[in-house]
């Protein structure tokens, strides 16, 4: 079910009515039924995989909890008889058992993800090896129906199991509640990747209808639809046109294409988040935030703390820290201490897990070498800036640069945005079948200046004059997005909006709805699908 389709809007408002009309204790059941309906609408078979995944998570968390409880009870019962070492040994044995359960359950979930998302990639690599030995390739033309949101719910499932293993969360005793946590429809296609303790607290409590939640949630949802349908979808055909046939256009058009791609990506992804976070606010459910004005970041690592926030947080908690804290990583750091010194060995201990995290991020985004390289490109910039930070410090002192001066901060933001754009556009063009490096090369070496507006913004084939009109609307939207981003620094834009007289607010919202609806024609251009849903 496309969330920009009219059927989706009808679905969520019908759900909203049922949700508040039924007794409060059934609210989570209503959400579960709605989530299952959402899945079934997208294909009946995929719900089976979600059920299997939820069953695995339910069983694993129960085994983990039982094992932990048994150990605790045993130590409590034999407190007087056991020595400190014996207690330690009992705890260690229990930990080993729990680690085995957790490892098996994680592998089971990853196997599903591997089969559905990565089998073509792995077979391609295998065939490449076979071709070296002049052997016949394995058939790789089969198609698999990828379960909706598998990239997202697998991470949430692993996170929940790890939390129970660490004792941060209690195992949920009701299987249906686990199923809801895994399959909650507003976050299934593009996140956020929620932690169990945070989301379960929201999902399973009783919710009271309030005008404030309803109006503020609706306003945010409307802004999300505007970002998606008026900005992102209007830029989409232009971006596809330029990134596919870049060798026909001037360097400046390629630069404009890359910038538009970045605005489209942000408007598309954050627009989805606004729609879903706004809708959940109407349900009195707070979803974790995924964006915090990322294009105003002063470094790439800061950008990644403000872009797809929940993915970064997930990777930090469940991948980066466990690897960095592992015995082998600490031992490696120790071994490097003597030959390389304390500073370098400490840096190595922090860097190796980061490389692995970026490999995971790249591979998670897309099963392709383009995105694996994209991940390592990000890692390279972040690690280099971390390692060279003392040199930067000395340079800033020598050049008498004031960190807080506005021109310097502006320079940092533009530099970061430029690096991010380079990494993103290269990967995007590669995935489209082009050569991303040639694209960038053309952008900076083809100095032919466009003589007409048509040369700068070449009309997309088949769209005619309608295209320029949509582009103008998108420019207006981009301007709004920029102003809102500046305003948001202090407090949410809605706080200011709600101070406007009610009549004027209604007029603005009605006009916005009309603009969004009239932009709906873009669906016929092949736009409409969300970019991050492909990940």
């Amino acid at each position, binding site marked *: 079910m496309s969330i920009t389709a009219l059927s989706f809007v009808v679905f969520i408002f019908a759900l909203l009515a049922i949700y508040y009309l039924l007794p409060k204790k059934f609210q989570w059941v209503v959400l579960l039924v709605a989530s299952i309906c959402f899945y079934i609408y997208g294909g009946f078979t995929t719900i089976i995989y979600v059920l299997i995944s939820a069953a695995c998570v339910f069983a694993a968390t129960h085994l983990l909890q039982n094992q932990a409880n048994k150990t605790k009870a045993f130590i409590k019962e034999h407190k007087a008889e056991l020595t400190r070492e014996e207690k330690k040994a009992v705890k260690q044995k229990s930990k080993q058992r729990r680690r085995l359960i957790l490892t098996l359950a994680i592998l089971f979930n990853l196997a599903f993800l591997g089969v559905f998302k990565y089998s073509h990639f792995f077979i391609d690599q295998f065939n490449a090896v076979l071709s070296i030995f002049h052997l016949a390739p394995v058939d790789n033309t089969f198609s698999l129906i990828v379960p909706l949101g598998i990239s997202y719910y697998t991470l949430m499932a692993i996170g929940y199991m790890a939390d129970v293993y*660490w*004792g*941060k969360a209690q195992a949920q005793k009701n299987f249906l509640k686990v199923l809801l946590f895994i399959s909650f429809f507003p976050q299934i296609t593009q996140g956020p990747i929620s932690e169990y303790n945070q989301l379960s607290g929201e999902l399973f409590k009783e919710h009271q209808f309030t005008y404030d939640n309803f109006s503020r949630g609706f306003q945010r949802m409307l802004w999300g639809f505007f970002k998606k349908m008026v900005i992102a979808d209007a830029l989409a055909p232009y971006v596809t046109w330029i990134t596919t046939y870049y060798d026909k256009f001037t360097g400046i058009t390629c630069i404009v294409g890359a910038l538009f791609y970045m605005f489209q990506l942000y408007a598309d992804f954050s627009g989805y988040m606004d729609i879903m976070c706004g809708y959940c606010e109407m349900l009195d459910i707070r979803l974790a935030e995924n964006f915090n004005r990322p294009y105003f970041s002063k470094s790439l*690592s800061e950008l990644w703390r403000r872009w797809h926030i929940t993915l970064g947080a997930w990777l*930090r908690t469940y991948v*980066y*820290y*466990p690897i*960095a*804290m592992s015995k082998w990583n*600490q031992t490696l*750091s*120790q071994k490097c201490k003597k030959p390389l010194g*304390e*500073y370098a*060995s*400490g*840096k190595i*201990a*922090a*860097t190796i*897990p*980061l490389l692995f995290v970026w490999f995971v991020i790249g591979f998670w985004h897309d099963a392709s070498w383009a995105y694996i390289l994209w991940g390592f490109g990000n890692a390279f910039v972040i690690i280099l800036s*971390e390692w060279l930070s003392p040199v930067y*410090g000395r340079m800033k002192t020598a050049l008498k640069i004031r960190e807080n001066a506005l021109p310097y901060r502006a320079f940092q933001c533009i530099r970061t945005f430029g690096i991010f754009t380079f990494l993103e556009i290269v990967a995007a063009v590669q995935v489209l079948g082009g050569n991303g490096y040639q694209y960038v090369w053309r952008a900076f070496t083809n100095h032919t200046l466009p003589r007409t507006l048509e040369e700068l913004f070449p009309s997309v084939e088949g769209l005619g004059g309608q295209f320029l009109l949509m582009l103008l609307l998108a420019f207006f939207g981009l301007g709004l997005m920029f102003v809102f981003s500046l305003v948001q620094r202090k407090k949410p834009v809605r706080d200011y909006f709600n101070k406007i007289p009610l009549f004027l607010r209604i007029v603005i919202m009605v006009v916005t709805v009309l603009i969004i609806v009239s932009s709906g024609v873009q669906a016929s251009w092949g736009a409409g699908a969300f970019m991050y849903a492909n990940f």
Partner: protein
Amino acid sequence: MDELLEILKKIKPGVDFEHETGLVEKRILDSMSIIRLVSALNNAFDIEIQVTDLVPENFESAASIMALVERLEDE
């Protein structure tokens, strides 16, 4: 405490660790520097900091880091 302050200053020079109480919140210590700090603390105090100990509350100030070290030394 002096030993801890030495370690902290080596990891992030130029920070007033004696008085700073928002090391994680202000991103003075990011995830990479926390890993370097953990490695240094494990060696210096012969403790074993666990993944579950890596929560912002434990690293917000020199005092909270010292409290974590003392708790782990007692275990």
